[in-house]
């Protein structure tokens, strides 16, 4: 086992564990913190697999922006953790689904021959990544950005209506 493999497995374990912890934490803030750790480790995994740009994006966007918004909301509404311990049957579907996916994962790893073949790690430099994305997938990218634009305009519109109704202050 190379240093490379060790790093991979450690990171993978961190991702799985912290995600699991994020799910089972009762304190919302703690869940958020574990999720951040998970994203951070995922970013490192990307880096390990030769995609530094993706790694950076993962951290910036998921850990740095989306989770901050989560945190922001949790802090402002001050969601308290429920004191009551959940009934066991609430966990049942999750447990069943988890067992099934573990089983499928096992089958996937040990039985499907594709998992045995070596995978070459290509260094996805930012420019290569950009070239690839905008040359092959310019249309989906444009559609996605258009959707985002619509979302942005919509949010702006809703926000404006809200503030106009309010009062005279010109913020």
């Amino acid at each position, binding site marked *: 086992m190379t240093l490379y493999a060790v790093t991979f497995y450690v990171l993978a374990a961190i991702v799985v564990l912290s995600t699991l912890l994020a799910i089972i934490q009762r304190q919302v*803030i703690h869940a958020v913190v574990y999720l951040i750790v998970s994203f951070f480790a995922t970013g490192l995994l990307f880096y390990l697999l030769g995609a530094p*740009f993706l790694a950076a*994006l993962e951290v910036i966007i998921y*850990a*740095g922006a989306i989770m*901050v918004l989560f*945190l922001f909301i949790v*802090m402002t509404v001050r969601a308290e953790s429920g004191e009551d311990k959940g009934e066991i049957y609430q966990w049942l579907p999750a447990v069943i689904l988890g067992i099934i996916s573990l089983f499928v994962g096992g089958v996937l790893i040990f039985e499907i021959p594709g998992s045995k073949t070596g995978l070459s790690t290509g260094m996805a430099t930012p420019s290569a990544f950009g070239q690839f994305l905008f040359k092959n997938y310019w249309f989906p990218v444009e559609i996605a950005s258009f959707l985002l634009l619509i979302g942005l305009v919509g949010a702006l519109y809703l926000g404006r209506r809200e503030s106009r109704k309010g009062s005279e202050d010109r*913020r």
Partner: protein
Amino acid sequence: MLLEWILGFVFLIVKLTIVLIILLTVAAYLVWVERKLLGRIQARYGPNRAGEFGLLQPLADLVKLITKEDTVPQEANKGIFLLAPGVVGLMALLIFAVVPFGSGVTLWGRSIPLVITDLNVGLLFILALSSISVYGIALGGWASNSKYSLLGGIRGAAQMISYEVPMGLSLVPVVMLARSFSLVEITNAQSARPFIFVQPVSFILFLIAALAEIKRIPFDLPEAENELGAGYHTEYSGMRFGLFFLGEYITMIILGSLIAVFFLGGWHGPLLPPIIWFLLKVGIIVFTLIWFRATFPRIRYDQLMNTGWKVLIPIALLNIVVTGALVLGTS
């Protein structure tokens, strides 16, 4: 092969240690410099009791901070409360890993680059880490279980994610011109002409956004003493407060370095050795930051948000489009 690897590793450790020690010392003395400068700007002496000219003041501060009682408020979320200052300090230190402070020296036949690691996505790395350091503030504020801290934390989170966008966008033209995310590459791209002359708009945008990002006056709303006590670190004491403090001053140095690297041509300069040039540029920027602090009043929260979203981002976007067009046109 193995020897080579071990040697490289040893060099790395030595380099890390030297940089870390210098960085911490400089950060500590930066406190002294700032207090001294602020004092003089207000026609006072500033610290002048501990040692000649108060030069031992940082040491005294350190002793004080370490020996002070480390209090944790009742009902505070203890784990997160203890973790938060660490996040701030660590992220600040990590950013410095990709900052090049010289062109590289040759020692015992080995060429040693004067950067801890020349990451190919160095710029993104910086952005990523600065976005992570939001957590130190937000979580610290939340975990203190104090209304001042919470308000400080919320303000900090909102301010930092708002200004991350213009900060990132203002750097896009730089990347376009340098055609690389690597900080060394960007520095080298300015060997002839620093980007400040090519991209003055970018420079001003970055300066403003970065000031807001490191929460210095006039953007120190998360700590606003007269409204929030000390904002997110109201409840911290002793060395935990010291970590917040340290983080702030390291980020000042980092901001100086980044502006030097992105806009002032890094270590490039005539006559003087590169490292001196670099330090000079950093020093000028840091002085400017202190000068700003001595001059400008804190801006209002709505003004902060309006400036960020309605002024800086559109200008940054416009700047990207114009730069892009020019770059396409010239190539």
